[in-house]
């Protein structure tokens, strides 16, 4: 026992042991590499006229804030308490029962207590109590109140950009307190000081200017889709002829630009093109793409309500300009939360459009009679139900598919059965993940709400663990090798997450599966799927 050299376990114990603070307010914030996204590019901030554009670095001690930043925050806070009942009620009624504590994918993955939804909200509540309640002002820390300081601001920034606004905690909260809403308000406040991340700010500026997040100009957009048509022709012998910016078309189609510009969303895009072509040949379907409204996603939603409205306005403006009857929307997550819960309120009423009716089946989409925008999963499910599509699901027989419910369509809409119905009709092998990881309890991909950058990879991987863990389970149990989803951010983020956690599983959009199964009129016999991989049973022929 009198050994002078410390035993290795003692050394490690010293390094390893975390100080147990009784009070989370005492834990200083440490902005850690791999867990945060780079600060916004001043050019992007300036382009859309948001406050305080400047070069800044979250690791610096000086964030170049405006002189009166505390006053700006206070006023902003006050204004939002009046404008949003959600915010005010959620600031007041939390009883800290702890039901949400272990529901957040970031908490589950990182183990950082401040990622418990209740604490994320308490970051704001503590300041709210100090600034807006008497008890907080008088009793201070005893009442859980603290004044706004630079340290608190850093904490806000760090943790509000570690929330993907997925709303899973809200499902379990007895009062429906929605951390997404609190994060949205918090980020709005941070934006008043110019504290955004670039992965959000630059897509916003691009989208405002060019119509899509990547800043793709109209000719490149058309070239890209042309190229998909080349590919489809090569695979099927049939060349779709999509229409762009066509006035007088029946329907306007809007999908996230990720489907046009990023793998594997591009294959989903090919699926849309094939479906539209099929419907055009068989039933005279008349749909147009738009280069102006070429983005379904809306990173303005991750900036402020105002920015969301500014970007979203293009959908109705373009529908009006083109004189279409209604709008069809592609597979995207937060895009659909915006369309479902915000668009009509912000930029409606869309009285220049007609109540959506499927020109092929005659189905009246009564659930979309005011917003006049239909989800493509609803549209395709209806087509299949009415037997309007000729399908060969065996062309997806090389795939053992599971379905990841994207956060927003499940918890901000309830689009659960439609995509499942479509998948089951176009695939023969479908397996569900465990019940507490799908539908309204689905786990986020870990990269939503503008966090799918490269520099925050550790955060994304940790946050993606709960989802990947469930995928791994069905991979091991059922041999699942394909993760289907209806969200462009999922299609961008999940492949990365899968490469780290379950490399045997790839990611697809639902309409890629539709494209594979759909038998186009007059097509040649296919030997490969849309990715150019040999179809099951075609391997030998391909070798010849």
């Amino acid at each position, binding site marked *: 026992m009198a050994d002078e050299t410390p035993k290795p376990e003692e050394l490690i114990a010293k390094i390893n042991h975390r100080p147990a603070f009784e009070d989370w307010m005492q834990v200083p914030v440490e902005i850690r590499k791999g867990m945060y996204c780079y600060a916004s590019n001043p050019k992007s901030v300036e382009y859309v006229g948001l406050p305080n554009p400047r070069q800044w670095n979250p690791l610096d001690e000086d964030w170049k804030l405006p002189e009166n930043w505390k006053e700006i925050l206070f006023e902003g806070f006050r204004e939002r308490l009046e404008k949003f009942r959600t915010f005010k009620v959620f600031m007041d009624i939390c009883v800290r029962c702890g039901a949400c504590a272990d529901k957040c994918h970031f908490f589950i*993955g990182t*183990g950082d207590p401040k990622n418990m939804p209740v604490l994320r909200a308490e970051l704001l509540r503590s300041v709210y109590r100090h600034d807006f309640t008497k008890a907080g002002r008088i009793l201070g820390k005893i009442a859980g109140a603290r004044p706004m300081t630079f340290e608190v601001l850093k904490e806000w920034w760090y943790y509000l950009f570690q929330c993907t606004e997925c709303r899973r905690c809200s499902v379990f909260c007895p009062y429906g307190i929605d951390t997404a809403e609190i994060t949205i308000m918090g980020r709005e406040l941070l934006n008043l000081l110019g504290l955004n991340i670039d992965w959000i700010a630059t897509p916003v500026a691009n989208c405002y200017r060019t119509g899509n997040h990547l800043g793709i100009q109209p000719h490149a957009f058309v070239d890209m889709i042309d190229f998909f048509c080349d590919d489809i022709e090569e695979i099927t012998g049939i060349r779709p002829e999509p229409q762009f910016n066509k006035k007088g078309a029946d329907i306007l189609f809007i999908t996230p630009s990720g489907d046009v510009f990023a793998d594997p969303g591009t294959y989903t895009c090919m699926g849309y093109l094939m479906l539209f072509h099929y419907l055009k040949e068989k039933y005279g379907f008349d749909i147009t793409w738009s280069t102006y409204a070429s983005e379904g996603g809306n990173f303005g939603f991750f900036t402020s309500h105002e920015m969301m409205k500014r970007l979203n306005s293009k959908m109705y403006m373009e529908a009006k300009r083109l004189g279409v009857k209604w709008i069809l929307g592609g597979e995207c997550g937060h895009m659909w939360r915006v369309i479902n819960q915000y668009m009509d309120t912000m930029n409606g009423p869309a009285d220049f459009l007609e109540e959506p009716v499927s020109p092929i089946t005659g189905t009246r989409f009564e659930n979309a009679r005011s917003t006049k925008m239909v989800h493509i999963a609803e549209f395709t499910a209806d087509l299949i139900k009415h037997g309007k599509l000729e399908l060969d699901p065996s062309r997806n027989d090389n795939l053992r598919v599971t379905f990841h419910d994207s956060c927003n369509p499940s918890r901000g809409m309830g689009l659960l059965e439609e995509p499942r119905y479509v998948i089951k009709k176009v695939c023969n092998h479908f397996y569900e993940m465990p019940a507490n990881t799908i539908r309204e309890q689905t786990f986020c991909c870990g990269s939503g709400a503008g966090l799918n950058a490269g520099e925050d990879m550790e955060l994304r991987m940790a946050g993606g663990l709960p989802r990947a863990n469930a995928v791994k389970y069905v991979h091991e149990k059922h041999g699942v090798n394909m993760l289907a989803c209806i969200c462009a951010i999922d299609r961008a983020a999940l492949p990365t997450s899968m490469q780290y956690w379950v490399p045997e599983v790839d990611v697809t959009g639902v309409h890629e599966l539709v494209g594979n199964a759909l038998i186009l009129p007059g097509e040649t016999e296919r030997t490969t799927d849309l990715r150019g991989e040999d179809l099951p049973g075609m391997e030998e022929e391909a070798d010849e």
Partner: protein
Amino acid sequence: MNLDKLLREKKRDIVDRWFNAVMDTYASDTAVIFKSQKDRFANPVGITIREGLSAIFEGLLEGRAAEQSASLLDPLIRIRAVQKFTPSQATGFIFLLKKIIRDTLHRKPDNGQVAPLLRFEDRIDALALTAFDIYMECKEKIYDLKVSQERNSIYRAFKRAGLITEVAEGEPDLNVH
């Protein structure tokens, strides 16, 4: 009683203590959830570590080569590589087993088995080195993903479409306005 037999007898207790020691590397309030939540989908970290440690210990008892234990070690290290740990913290939990085993032996009357113990500890050391290899692999993968995610998705699609040069030229310049 020979060492292996003793350790096998005490396996449950040793693995429990090892698990608790690893959990102590997390914030105390977090550790409680990681320890108590038994649903593997609600608690991937806790369950993966618990099951992993048990399997790894079994491997040590069987005298399996460290490389063979790598597949058991991988899920644990993969998780700790993205959490708030330094490299030594992320992998050092292997050494905690030494102390637990020594403590276990101290409580036994015939603890004069130095040679078998040292042999067992050598296996633990080898395992720790393997853990570091895996840790580096995970980190490299992370860096690789950081760099390649855009190339893999966006630029690959552009390249397929033959647009890659055009885009470089027509890169949106926000200064225009």
